[in-house]
Structures are given as structure tokens and as C-alpha cells.
């Protein structure tokens, strides 16, 4: 079967009788089987997906199918689906089965998407290489020795290796965009508050957003319009109306664009990543776009600010894993306190414990102002400076990551080195801005290089229109 890059292609082939949803599901299940060594899936819903495909085929025939009919998706192991297991790729949630579905899952199912399985990720979404999962690392399909990126590594590889058409990941500091960049697919992080977090396992609540990973900008737009919007279950989900993003992906006028000097000329950027930026800038200027260089000296403080605040939020979000109400309980516990301590110490992996310790420290009496409050102040400066740039320009462009996919184990010895892999993605996260990564070039090492586009708050439409323009030109 041919490799599909968008739902529109799938639907067109179905309407011409060239394929069916059932045939497509069988094809993807076959791909999942032959690519099992990539470790992208933790669980595959084989029988369910097959049964549902028959129902959706019938709906398409009778003309009452939803917007996502024919779309086969995977979900990151942070997203709850009723009566299905969900574990945040952690031993502490071993055997846990969700009692309800997340809003994003309900909305996808209501539009006739088929969920084919649950994808591997970094434990509690804490990582940039999908190496902290209790289920083991995920391999990049283009080069098995290299990382998938993370934390939504399994999701990105499931799309990259044609094991499904799209995936939902979660992005706290780049966890959708960076693996998308490493795997040569599209990854979108919506504006903070655009998508409901009901039924999403919490990592850092002033950052977390669900976002689609797809082959095409059009499918990212379509998925976003289905999952976004107000939700009675989540008061942080915005009441702002959701546009029909996918219906008008054309540039009506040329956006004014800025690029960050530090993200092109800075240190540690692979020369070919820099080359991709310079060539994009040149092409856009030749096409008559205003593309100007701006300075963002605060960029070097983005990663430390991000880690102070996210570890603080994580330490409090993860206090619920106590070995009492659900999940793993240590057999070595003798009293209530050792139930907590031993269950948590045996259930959480090394990186998660490191972040809980850091977060507990920066929130503790005597250190709160010097670390946590300080980082919240720098966060305001980073947000305000970003907003100021976006009052002069419509979009910012920068690389998604300073390098292409790195090798397994390359960054695992020093946590600070791994944290710096997020350097270009955390700015949008700190400022709550929407951002998208699209494949923009291929490195001489054969791996994809992602271009990141940052838009204004709730202006996903303008960002998607521009991303679609770049995609079409390639």
C-alpha cells in the first residue's frame, strides 16, 4: 500500500474505491509488527481498531462520517482513554487503567478517528530523547542508532515509520516539536489554554499542552480544530472560539517575520542547521517577505528558567503518586511513611526523582525567593520581550533544535547537556505562544532538520497558513 501523507489523500482514495479504512488499519497493523524493534508502541489495540474500521467504512458509505473518518492515530502514554491502560511510561503507574477518557480522545472519537495504540514516551514526559521510559528507548526510523527525540518520541516515530497517519503528543518544553524535528514530521504546540487538559497526566501545569504530530500541516490544522476549545472539565481551556483552521490554509497577505540572531549565529548550532535558516531567510526575502534579524539576549536564560519552574510544578503534581490510591506499591513497606517513600523511590525512574528533588528544593522555605520567584520574574521578562517582538512582527522563525537527532546515550551522562537540547523550544513554552515544527531540510548525515515558527497568542491560523506555504514550496 502507498504511504499516505494526509487525510485528504486517504479520503480521496476511499471515495475512488482504491482502499478502505479496514484495509488501511490492516496495513498499519502490519507496519507496527514489522517495525516493533523501534519500540514506538507500548500497546496496540488490534481487535478494537479492526472492529471500528468496519463501522467507519459503513459510515463513509452511507455519507454520515465525521471529519476524521479514515484517520488512524496513536496517542502518547500521557493521554487517558477510558478502560485502557495509561502509565506515563512509568513503573509507578504499572497496571493503571483509566476510568474516563480525556477530552481530546472523546473529541477525536466523535469525529470517527481510529485509535490504534498507545505510544512510548519519556517517563512523565521528562526527557528530550525518549530514553527515560520504563519501557526502554525509542529508535529513530531513519537511523536506528539515533534518538527519536522526546518526550513524545514514540508518537513521532509512529508517524515517521508509517505505522499510523497521525499522533497526539504533549508538549511542555518542546516534547512535540523536537521529536517531530528529529523524525522529519510536523509537530504543533498550540497556545497555552487552546486545548483542554482534562484526562492528560500532568507534568508542569503552566506549560502542558496537547499537540498533533502529522505528515502534513493540513492534518495538524484539522486535528487542532477537532481537539481545541472550551471544556467544562478544564477551567484553563480558553473560551476563545476555534476557527476552522483546515479550511483556509492560504496566505492572504505576507506576514512580517523576524528571526532571532542568537538562534542563527549562536554557539553550538550545527553548521547545516544554520545553513537551513540562512537559506530559508533568503528564499523568503526573494519572495518579497519582510524578514529581519532581531536580538533576544534573554534566550540563554530560557532553559534555566524553564527547569526551575517545571521541576517545581512537577514536584507538586507528582505528589499524588503515593502508593495508596492507585499504581505501584512497594512490597518492602512496613508503615505509612515507608509506603510513600519506598513506593515512590522504587516506582519513579532516575530523571523523575531528580526533577522532584530539584522542584522540592526550589520551593522549600529559605530558597523559594532565590530560585522559584526569581525564575517567575525572568519568565515574565521572556514573555514580555517575546510579545513585544510579536507586536512588530507576525511570526518568529528559528530552528526547532540546534542539531539533528543525536545518538542514544550521547547526552545521558550530564543532565544539563540534555536540558540544553530544549534551547530553542522553551521560549514559546515560557511565553505560552503557539509554535510548529516543519521539516525544512535534510542534513548531509541523512537526518531531517526542522524549522520552527512561533505565532501570536491564539493566532494558530496565521502560523499554520505560513507553515503550509513553506511546506508547499518544498
Amino acid at each position, binding site marked *: 500500500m502507498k504511504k499516505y501523507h494526509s487525510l485528504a489523500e486517504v479520503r480521496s482514495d476511499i471515495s475512488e474505491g482504491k482502499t478502505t479504512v479496514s484495509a488501511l488499519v490492516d496495513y498499519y497493523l502490519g507496519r507496527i509488527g514489522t517495525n516493533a524493534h523501534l519500540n514506538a508502541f507500548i500497546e496496540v489495540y488490534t481487535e478494537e481498531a479492526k472492529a471500528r474500521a468496519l463501522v467507519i467504512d459503513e459510515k463513509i458509505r452511507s455519507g454520515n462520517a465525521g471529519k476524521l473518518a479514515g484517520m488512524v492515530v496513536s496517542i502518547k502514554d500521557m493521554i487517558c482513554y477510558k478502560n485502557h491502560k495509561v502509565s506515563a511510561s512509568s513503573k509507578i503507574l504499572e*497496571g*493503571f*487503567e483509566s*476510568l*474516563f477518557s480525556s477530552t481530546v480522545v472523546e473529541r477525536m472519537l466523535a469525529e470517527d478517528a481510529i485509535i490504534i495504540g498507545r505510544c512510548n514516551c519519556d517517563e512523565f514526559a521528562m526527557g528530550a530523547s525518549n530514553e527515560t521510559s520504563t519501557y526502554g528507548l525509542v529508535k529513530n526510523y531513519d537511523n536506528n542508532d539515533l534518538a527519536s527525540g522526546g518526550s513524545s518520541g514514540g508518537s513521532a516515530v509512529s508517524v515517521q515509520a508509517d505505522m499510523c497517519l497521525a499522533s497526539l503528543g504533549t508538549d511542555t518544553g518542546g516534547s512535540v516539536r523536537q521529536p517531530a524535528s528529529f523524525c522529519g514530521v510536523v509537530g504543533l504546540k498550540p497556545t*497555552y*489554554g487552546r486545548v483542554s487538559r482534562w484526562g492528560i497526566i500532568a507534568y508542569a501545569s*503552566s506549560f502542558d499542552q496537547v499537540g498533533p504530530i502529522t505528515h502534513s500541516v493540513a492534518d495538524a490544522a484539522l486535528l487542532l480544530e477537532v481537539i481545541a476549545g472550551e471544556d*467544562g472539565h478544564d*477551567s*484553563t481551556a*480558553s*473560551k476563545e472560539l476555534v476557527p476552522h483552521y483546515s479550511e483556509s490554509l492560504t496566505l492572504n497577505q505576507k506576514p512580517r517575520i523576524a528571526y532571532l540572531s542568537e538562534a542563527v549565529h549562536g554557539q553550538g548550532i550545527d553548521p547545516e542547521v544554520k545553513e537551513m535558516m540562512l537559506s530559508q531567510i533568503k528564499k523568503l526575502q526573494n519572495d518579497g517577505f519582510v524578514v529581519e534579524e532581531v536580538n533576544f539576549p534573554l534566550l*540563554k*536564560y530560557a532553559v*534555566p*528558567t524553564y*527547569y*526551575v519552574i517545571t521541576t517545581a510544578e512537577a514536584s507538586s503534581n507528582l*505528589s499524588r503518586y503515593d502508593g*495508596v*490510591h*492507585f*499504581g505501584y*506499591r512497594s512490597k518492602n*513497606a512496613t*508503615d*505509612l*511513611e*515507608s*509506603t*510513600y*517513600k*519506598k513506593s*515512590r*523511590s522504587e516506582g519513579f525512574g532516575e530523571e523523575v*526523582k*531528580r526533577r*522532584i*528533588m*530539584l522542584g*522540592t*528544593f526550589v520551593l*522549600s522555605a529559605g530558597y523559594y525567593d*532565590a*530560585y522559584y*520567584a*526569581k*525564575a*517567575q*520574574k*525572568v*519568565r*515574565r*521578562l521572556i*514573555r514580555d520581550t517575546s510579545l513585544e517582538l510579536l507586536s512588530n512582527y507576525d511570526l518568529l522563525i528559528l530552528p526547532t533544535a540546534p542539531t539533528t537527532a543525536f545518538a542514544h546515550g550521547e547526552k545521558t551522562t550530564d*543532565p*544539563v547537556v540534555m*536540558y540544553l537540547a530544549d534551547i530553542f523550544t522553551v521560549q514559546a513554552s515560557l511565553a*505560552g505562544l503557539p509554535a510548529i515544527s516543519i521539516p525544512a531540510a535534510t542534513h548531509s548525515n541523512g537526518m531531517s532538520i526542522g524549522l520552527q515558527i512561533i505565532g501570536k497568542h491564539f493566532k494558530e491560523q496565521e502560523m499554520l497558513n505560513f507553515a503550509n506555504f513553506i511546506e508547499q514550496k518544498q
Partner: protein
Amino acid sequence: MKIDKDLVDKIAHLARLEFQDEQKVKIEEDLNRILSFMESLNEVDTSAVAPLIYLSDEVNVFRADVVKQEITHEEALRNAPKKDSDYFRVPKVIDQK
């Protein structure tokens, strides 16, 4: 700021975590390394800046106060590592010495 063994113990207790032997040495080392990285924030003048706490502009999201049973008693207990028919079970809390 230098984190020592005593501070590691104190934070670990607050976080209800335990670290033994070489793990304890490793976490002390990691925390110090990461904190010195975080301390670069002290180079930024924030004397006139208020902390950014809420990211959303949404205010006072109201809903009707209606009682709903969204999960049953049995469902609430379904994922418990140890339970009886009515309750979560934990080791004995009150010592009867």
C-alpha cells in the same frame, strides 16, 4: 549555593523519596551541577519585575453547582494496589505498643 548530604536528606524526606549509598552521592552531585546552571538567572536584573504566575487571561470560569456522580465507589477502588470492599488499605498507622 552548595547542597550537602544533610540537605539531600532533608529534601528527600520532604519529597517522600529515599536515596541509598551511591545513589545519594549521585543525586547530590547532580543537584549541585543543575543548581549552578540555574544560578545564571542571578545575572538578570529583576528588581522591578513582578513574578509571572498565571499564564491564562481567563478569569472566573463559573459553572452551575450541580451534584454529579462521575465515578462509582467500585471504580474509585479499581486501581488500588490494596483494598477491601469499601476502603483503600494501608499498613497500620497507630502503633499499639
